[in-house]
């Protein structure tokens, strides 16, 4: 999993061939924009990598009851479609809201309890074999 979870720091040292990951990060931050305006604090970290069509990855995360989170995903491909959903540690869908629009997607959760949740990211359509993606999140 670690090779798929790339901190911004590592993005700085990746080669120019991976420059599209930067575009994916920009897309994810763009998807987060409306929520920042609503007072969500965006974490200054990004997670990302590349995925094949219909390939999913899970990112485990400890979430706290009492916080309100938005997780936003973006990809570098204009014609790509992505999806992001949130599950609890038993694999039950736990999100309170979600949406997908072309290369952007987001999911919101107000955790029912503090614990480990799984952020599932997926590329649902893309003309490319592998599609760069990135995720950011905010909370309030």
């Amino acid at each position, binding site marked *: *999993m*670690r090779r*798929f*979870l790339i*901190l*911004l*720091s*590592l993005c*700085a*040292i990746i080669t120019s061939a991976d420059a599209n990951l930067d575009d994916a990060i920009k897309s994810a931050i763009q998807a987060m924009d409306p929520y920042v305006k609503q007072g969500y*604090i965006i*974490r*200054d*970290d990004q*997670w990302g990598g590349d995925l094949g069509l219909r390939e*999913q*990855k*899970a*990112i*485990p*995360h*400890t*979430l*706290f*009851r*009492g*916080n309100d989170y938005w997780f936003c995903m973006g990809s570098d491909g204009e014609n790509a*479609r992505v*999806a992001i*959903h949130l*599950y609890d*540690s038993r*694999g*039950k*869908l736990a*999100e309170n809201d*979600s*949406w*997908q*629009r072309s290369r952007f*997607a*987001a999911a919101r959760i107000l955790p029912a*309890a*503090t*614990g*480990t949740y*799984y952020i*599932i990211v997926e590329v*649902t359509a893309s003309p490319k074999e592998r599609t760069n993606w990135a995720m950011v999140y905010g*909370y*309030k």
Partner: protein
Amino acid sequence: MMKNPFAVVVATTLLLAAIPSLGEAPPSHIDLSKFPATQLDDIVVPLPSEVFNVLDKLGAPNWQEQLRDPKVKNRGEREQIALLLGSVVAEGFVAVEAADKARVKAIGRDVLELSRAIGVESTVLIRTNSIVTKADSGDWISVRRELDGALTDVKTAMIKLQDAQLAHLVSLGGWLRGTEVLTAIVQKSYSPDGADLLNQPDLLRYFQQRLAGMPPRMRNNPLVTRIQKGLDEISPLLNQKLTPDSVRRINEITGQMVKAIDSHA
């Protein structure tokens, strides 16, 4: 009716683009064992402000009472300095909650000193200056953001310097001090809502695995060994239903570990 079909198509397209689509309905249940690449050895470590954000909503504890004033020295083994750096950043959050300007400013300077000792001073210089300035003006929300940012920047710089192991120790130091404070607050007025914040067994397992996976030179460092032992003591307590007694015990153990980190300074 459609005098200008093109305009209608454009308007419809713009409207659809403006409305987020629900997309395909996600399955209501998934088999997490189908994600073998994402075993719990990799978990996102929450920022201190994610915890303190919830604590804000739980009432107004006496934060001043929780503040410590450890003597921070920038000489010592790198493992100890990394643990101390994380712990000091967590202390910064307590000082923010206590609205203690002098303490926050001192912590900003301590963060800089400790960062210098492990070669990442330039990474946090702007952040620490900002912590001091914003504490002066009482802009506590911004101070919190700068403390979060300092923690992230330090860890990022360490990863760049091929020092990911030290970055884990910074996170662990912050988690230990944060857990000590959290248990102290919950202990004062026990409530299931407060205790629920401690439901972090996977995070604890993550830290245990990180320590176990360190090279022998680091793993056998007396302080790291001490911390590893402490985490092993906490583990059964966090993996069962939390009670006032278990919260008190976790507070004692984390308190001892934080003292051990300080005393090696």
